[in-house]
């Protein structure tokens, strides 16, 4: 990521203290979104500890950072699961019943969109158009598009993943 002329507050602690002093509050505030992106890149999500850490780095309250982060769909606050499920709710998928697919998934996994299951196997997200309108309603499982989803094909898909995982777990135990 290009930082231009602004000194990078992510350098070693001694030199950071020095350079922090040279940055005005406004300059630091402009750093919020790029820093959040960097955090999400490293963690895969935005943990609470990182918001508190960023708050002390940038002299901006945790609330302001969290407010900015929750405004954008891009940022997530739960660690991604082993399998990431994205349900498309673009216009075509919405009309095609994407909402119902999402509800079913939510019920089966016991989580709301944006959350991760306690065993961290699945995370669920709603996304806008994925460009597979012809295949509406579409579901992305680990970045693979599954189109024309029905309740039945959805169940089959998840069962298959569960079976594969179980088999893999057994394999690693032996």
């Amino acid at each position, binding site marked *: 990521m290009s930082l231009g002329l602004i000194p990078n507050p992510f350098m070693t602690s001694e030199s950071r203290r020095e350079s922090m002093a040279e940055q005005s509050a406004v300059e630091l505030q402009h750093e919020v979104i790029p820093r959040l992106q960097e955090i999400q890149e490293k963690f895969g999500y935005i943990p609470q500890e990182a918001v508190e*850490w960023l708050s002390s780095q940038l002299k901006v309250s945790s*609330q302001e950072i969290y407010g900015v982060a*929750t*405004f954008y769909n891009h940022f997530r606050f739960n660690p991604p699961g082993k399998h990431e499920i994205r349900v498309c709710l673009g216009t075509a998928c919405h009309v095609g019943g994407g909402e119902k697919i999402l509800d079913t998934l939510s019920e089966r996994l016991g989580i709301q969109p944006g959350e991760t299951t306690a065993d961290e196997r699945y995370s669920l997200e709603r996304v806008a158009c994925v460009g597979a309108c012809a295949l509406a309603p579409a579901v992305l499982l680990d970045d693979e598009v599954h189109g024309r989803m029905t309740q039945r094909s959805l169940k089959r898909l998840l069962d298959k993943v569960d079976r594969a995982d179980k088999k893999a777990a057994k394999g690693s135990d032996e």
Partner: protein
Amino acid sequence: MATIFIDGRKIEFEEKGKTILDVARESGIYIPTLCDHDELESHGGCRMCIVEVEGMRGFPPACTTAAKDGMEVKTATDNLMTLKRNIMQLLLMEHPSACMVCAEQEGCNKYRPDPYKAGRVTGCTTCPNRYTCQLREVVEFLGIKDLDYLPGYKEIDVEREDPFFDRDYNLCILCARCIRVCDDVRGTSAITFVKRGHETRVDTSFGVSHIDSGCWFCGACIDVCPTGSLKPRMTKWTGAPDSVEESTCVLCSMGCQTQFTIKWERVMGSEPGALESAPNHGHMCVLGRFCIPSLVNAPDRIKSPHLRKEGDSVPVSWEEALGEVSRLLKEASPERVGFLGSPQMSSESAYVFHKLARAGVKSPNVDFQGSDFPALIHKELAVDQDFARIRELDYLKEVDWIISVGGDFVKDHQVVAKKVYKEVRQGKPLIVIGDAGANLHRWSTVHVSVQGKDIQKLLINLAEHSKKIPGTSYTQAQQLVEITGKGKGAVLVGPRILESIEPGLSLRALVRLAGVDGALFPLFPLGNEAGVIKAGLRPEMLPGPASITVKEAKALLEKAWGGGNLSDGLHLVEMRQKAQKGELDMLYIADGSISPEGFEKIPTIIYQSPYPSEWSDMASVILPSTTFVEESGTFINLELKPLKMKPIAKAPGTARQDWQIFAELGRLIGTDGFDHQTSEDIWEELSHFTRSIEVGGQKRRASWKPASKEKNDWYPRYRGAVIPERIEDLATFIKALPRRDTPLSDETLDELVKRVQKEHASRAKEVVS
């Protein structure tokens, strides 16, 4: 002069950054608003103030549209009113609105004027904001009688876990006033809008409690909320007050003008006074906003005088009690009597107490607790007669930079902090020396966390514009010299400056640093310390305050009082030492906050206070006095500005005002000059004495001791009542403070990633097992 036409009316105005709304209001034209507030910048969120402007497309909001010469504005066309009604109805879909469109409304308002208590607010009849609802005002103005859209209830849990106030965001209309006042005015940012669109809520980061989000419980959000979403838990169901009175709060040295709601002759609630009332201008702190009613209405207040008879303290009449006290005072040998006043008395009471001691009993042993810091200020400023440096806080606008030394003032002087933040927000540099909590860490341009003895060296070098500054890096030192090198400065100095080796030298270095036109703001920790110092309630001082060594002051006082003992006497520490040796026969103490340790051997103790304390068990005589809401008098705040206290509530039992008790005793002893009828008489008498401090007069106290060395020494008391012990919510808040003062993190992002992932892995293991 520019001209504008609003609803056909020709209005002339100054075209200086004014909006259409400003101009309309100035000429008395009502435009409904919800998100607009006098203290906040225009927001343009609620769309209630939309207007039509000739030649402009659409419906611009009056609050964000600049008024220009020749504009033709219409505020209430049919088209506009229909639009506004529609917007309001959309808003009411999510706000419990059953009562607003109820056919029984008129009768209900008449026969059931008080809201009744309910766990959930379902309409105006169960809403604690019923009397002051701004949403209802606008609904009534728009004349909405029915709802065209299906209403829904947001079903958000009411948050009752945090101290002092409940938050019911089911009533929230998302006007952002609370967020803006917290962020833009108080500089705390404890709340924010979370998420967006339909899911937007006012919340904290990751939904943590307000205690953990950095809230100071100043109550500013409650004061600006147009709905009943935010309400102080303790006073929300008391109903409409009988009257509203403005008086002075004495719980710290700010002297906030406070609006008290009175019902049944008692204080039911306290809110900040009007926006234009100096010195606090519509703002307060946690103590004034939430703690006054419980404090002054405490059921254990002393209600009648008590005398100790055969070991038991029994209630007696005032006649008997005062007769006994005057006999005791007359019989005592003056040198063996001590008088200890309170920094939370009125200046008048302190003066009459002083007069009773020196002129009545002829004893020079007078003092009060917490006196070292204000006395240091007086002594050091006397060196060059710098008293004019103590200015009004509004002078912060005039200075070029601000420096704070001697404690984190955000905690114990929240209103001062608000005023400082106003300047910081506009880009004025703030230098913080010593402790800094989350707020100061964010606000400060330079923060040097040196402690104790290094402070002195730092200040002295800084005053000489030397770049050799202990505890700073090269860049920081350069910045410090650059900022303080030009213009005039404002110095905020707290009592922890007493921790430096020679506080006097540190203080003088600060005064030099600020420059001739600079300002000094001594942040006295306890109420009316400046007023009690004016009454001269110290062994080496006389009213004015004057030093006992100044001959003219002494002569003036001798003439006014007709004699009296005007020599140097014992101060608090010396009284305690004498008491331990059994060399003190009697103690007249009017402040229960002083520790009774060491005073156990004194045979006769006269205790005067509104509250019982450890002293009441030791006292031979107990005299009940009034609190600051029940007495008249003058409070001198940290700007050395006199502010009036008014008796607005009824004292419990037969409690009397302090000065009345002292004056009566003076008369009973038979001394002339105690025939004051009102507190104004006393103020008049005290005003004859003027300040004449001489440095030599205070030699004895060459060494100054810090008031307290503990890190978190903010534990507010009021005349023997320990406030956090009486108010659980305050104790919870104070206990949480050290946890919030986490130092600046030195971790790099990679270190953070490692730490968090490790913690996360161990948590995940627990879930699986």
